[in-house]
């Protein structure tokens, strides 16, 4: 709440750094995400005071304290509800929801899917570390089956959500995935999320080095990364691998990994199409052990936003029928006593 906002012509990363000490564990993936977001925000051409970060509870949800904009660290799971009311009544604000896999998909699951369905023009950054960090290490709804944690000492038995598939089930208009340490990619995705009109749902794979270290080593370690990541690009075939020599093909509506060459060419591969949610769903269900982990924009489609539509109703009601409190109070059958 110190430096000037709208008036200053050009903002930089430092303008988005608050005066609060960052309280994540040393080495936590949250730092990298914070840094990328702080880099992207000043580039978006929006006065600083128009940004609002709303979060729930969790390590990730401390995010707003560190960003020098308006912020609301609310209660567990309810950030989407709060953001909905804020955005619906103040559509000119740039509203960002920061949440964790527990916050968004456990206690907050319902609000998230309703947000996506309504398609408010806000951005969701879901830090998925596949664990409850803040409460010190219980399994989360994205933890893999058999996960050994404090609350599942002999392994969890529940099948996890795939956040991307769930978002597609709720017919989200923008669904993407990135990785905490993929700085460029993450910046691009954050920027695209901002640009998209409607709810932008971004899952960010985030390492919790204290309670679930290396959960995404496959896609973050130099040695394995290329073979285990499928970078989605609109209009491009699904190719991956260190030598970009493997791809995903569809046979009988079943995806399979194929080796390029030997008669198999890129033309045989599935071509990514951001405008096709059904394809996005098919891609979402790829992943280890048989497939690489897809990252990038799964789908980006246009559909009306709740906030705009509601604002429109109000504007036209006002235009048709200007507010007249006296008339309202005197509405219906009245009589006069004299």
């Amino acid at each position, binding site marked *: 709440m110190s430096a000037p906002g*709208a008036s200053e012509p050009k903002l930089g990363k430092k303008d988005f750094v608050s005066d609060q000490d960052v309280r994540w564990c040393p080495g936590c993936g949250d730092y990298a995400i914070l840094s990328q977001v702080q880099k992207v925000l000043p580039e978006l051409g929006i006065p600083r005071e128009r940004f609002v970060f709303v979060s729930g509870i969790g390590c990730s949800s401390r995010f707003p304290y560190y960003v020098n904009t308006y912020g609301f660290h*609310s209660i567990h799971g309810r950030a989407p509800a709060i953001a909905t009311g804020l955005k619906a009544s103040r559509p000119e604000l740039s509203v960002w929801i920061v949440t964790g896999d527990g916050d968004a998909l456990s206690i907050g699951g319902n609000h998230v899917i309703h947000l996506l369905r309504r398609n408010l023009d806000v951005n969701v950054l879901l830090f998925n570390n596949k664990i409850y960090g803040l409460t010190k290490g219980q399994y989360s709804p994205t933890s893999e089956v058999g996960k050994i944690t404090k609350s599942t000492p002999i392994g969890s038995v529940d099948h996890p959500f795939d956040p991307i598939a769930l978002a597609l089930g709720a017919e989200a208009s923008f669904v993407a995935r990135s990785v905490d340490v993929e700085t460029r990619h993450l910046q691009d995705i954050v920027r695209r999320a901002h640009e998209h009109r409607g709810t932008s749902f971004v899952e960010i794979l985030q390492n919790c080095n204290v309670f679930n270290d290396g959960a995404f080593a496959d896609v973050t370690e130099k040695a394995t990364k290329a073979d285990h990541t499928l970078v989605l690009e609109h209009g491009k075939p699904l190719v991956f691998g260190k030598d970009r020599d493997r791809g995903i093909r569809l046979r009988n509506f079943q995806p399979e990994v194929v080796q390029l060459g030997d008669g198999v060419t890129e033309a045989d591969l599935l071509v990514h199409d951001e405008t096709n949610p059904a394809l996005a769903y098919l891609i979402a269900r790829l992943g280890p052990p048989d497939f690489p982990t897809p990252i990038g924009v799964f789908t980006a489609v246009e559909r009306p936003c709740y906030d705009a539509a509601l604002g429109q109703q109000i504007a036209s009601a006002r235009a048709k029928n200007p507010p007249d409190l006296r008339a309202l109070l005197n509405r219906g059958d009245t009589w006069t006593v004299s």
Partner: protein
Amino acid sequence: MADGVATLAKPIEERDAIVIRFAGDSGDGMQVTGMQFTTGSALAGNDLATLPDFPAEIRAPAGTLAGVSAFQLNFSSLPVFTPGDDLDVLVAMNPAALKTNVEDLKAGGILIVDKESFHEQNLKKAGYDHNPLTDGSLARYQLFQIDVTKLTTAALQDLGLSARSVFRCRNFFCLGVTSWLYHRPIEPAEQWIRDKFRKTPELVEANVRALHAGYHFSENAELFAVSYSVKPAVIPPGRYRNITGNTATALGFVAAAHKAKRPLFLGSYPITPASDVLHELSTLKQFDVYTFQAEDEIAGVGAALGAAFGGAIAITTTSGPGMNLKAETIGLALAVELPLVITDIQRAGPSTGMPTKTEQADLLMAMYGRHGEAPVPVLAAATPADCFTMAYEAVRIAVKYMTPVILLSDGFLANGAEPWPIPDPDTLPDVPVTFRTDPGGFFPYVRDEESLSRPWVIPGTPGLEHRIGGLEKEYLTGNVSYAPTNHEQMMRVRARKVAGIVREIPPTEVFGPADGELLLVGWGGTYGSIRQATSQLQAAGHRVAHVHLRHLNPLPADLESILGRYRRVLVPEINLGQLVRLLRAEYLVDAIGFNKVQGRPFKVAEIVARCLKLLNGEHGEVPS
């Protein structure tokens, strides 16, 4: 009459007050009938109060007990406080309606029935072994059996309507009958019919004819020997409308937001009996009213809190079951100190309970239903029209003190109605809202010296960027703090802020002698019954007074001394003793409870009887 209805020839008797109830099947249009009769009575200058009684089922099979819908009206030449205890007149459209209502009819009361509906099938559905019209069981009433169906059919004969459409005009026939009997004008009903059925002229014609037919029938038939007149009441001059509690609540919010020059944001999830506030507000978008039907009550209050952060007048509406779900967010609202009004339109609990029935058992939840020390001002409306005033007041307090406020209403107030002297918007109290924009000396939790409230700074304000949240905050800066004494300081300042709202409470109105034998203390929808009972007791020479609390937290500053001036304090409540606990804890006064929990309001007579016992020295139950 305008259409040339002949002058009345039969003798006219005068009455002070009449309590009439229209009862029939859900499909019989009893609510419309009752409301039209009410309009007529208002235009006749009577004071009045009304109460509908909807069936719990959406549409129970026709003719069953579960399907009975009723509407009660008390109209009088004297001040009216309640829809009335026992009935002077019951109109019963079928056996089920008779069965479920007749026990409320006074001995000697007028009972009008549609004779033809008492056929075997209907009698069976209502569980009658014999036809009560013929087995002598109704001997204590003045029974008027009218061939309503046949007479209506005859009147509409040449219109070529289906039997079903004709059948649906029976209610206006009965309205005609009763309008004649009590000298109500029928023009307003006629106008209503013309508006309502604008698009189907044959229905206009049919219903208007049925209305007139009923009127002429009573006038001409040998049935009624006399008709009754009820003189206009002495009512303060002004423009009036009949208003239900839910409509008044909605208008109170709209008026307050309008006065504050801010948008109104309602986040809500439907629930009986609160949904009508959502319905009403969603028709008022031109007043900058945002209505958000949320996925549940948590999202409803959450969205409202988000809107409050953004600078809207934010409200949420619900009933008991939904209140449970809002508790955590109310706690957050008070921690972040943002204005928010939570309206609880109480219904009979616990759990799902009896959703269509009234109760006032959520007071202690409103006071204490959140974890931690979480003080919230609590207001309660006393009458349907008072819902306007208290909704308005709730907003005013919320924004002045930057605090969530709980407003209590109940099913009885929500659906009940009374004449409302329509206020002049210009004379409504101000609701000043100023958003801080000055960065000089700004801290998110810097406090106003008198009100102790923090500044309202909305996102979009340059230079005042800040973060709020539910973790304990450092006094002044609002930064997260775990410092032990800071926590205590914050706890106490939040408590003092709410306690300080006592300065907003006007001196308590004492109805009756300033000291005496007995003080009745009530809150919420019991106002009418208690006030009327007090009047009766006073008329009988007892030194009894009535205080009705509309501010439950904090309690009025002068209450302690008032309580001390009466030998006995009795607290009638539609619960098992809640306000009585607050008074006992706060003032160590040996207040005793008078409790009834049957899903319906007190009868005046019940309160009078209880008071008389007490005045005669019998002690009562203590809160259980």
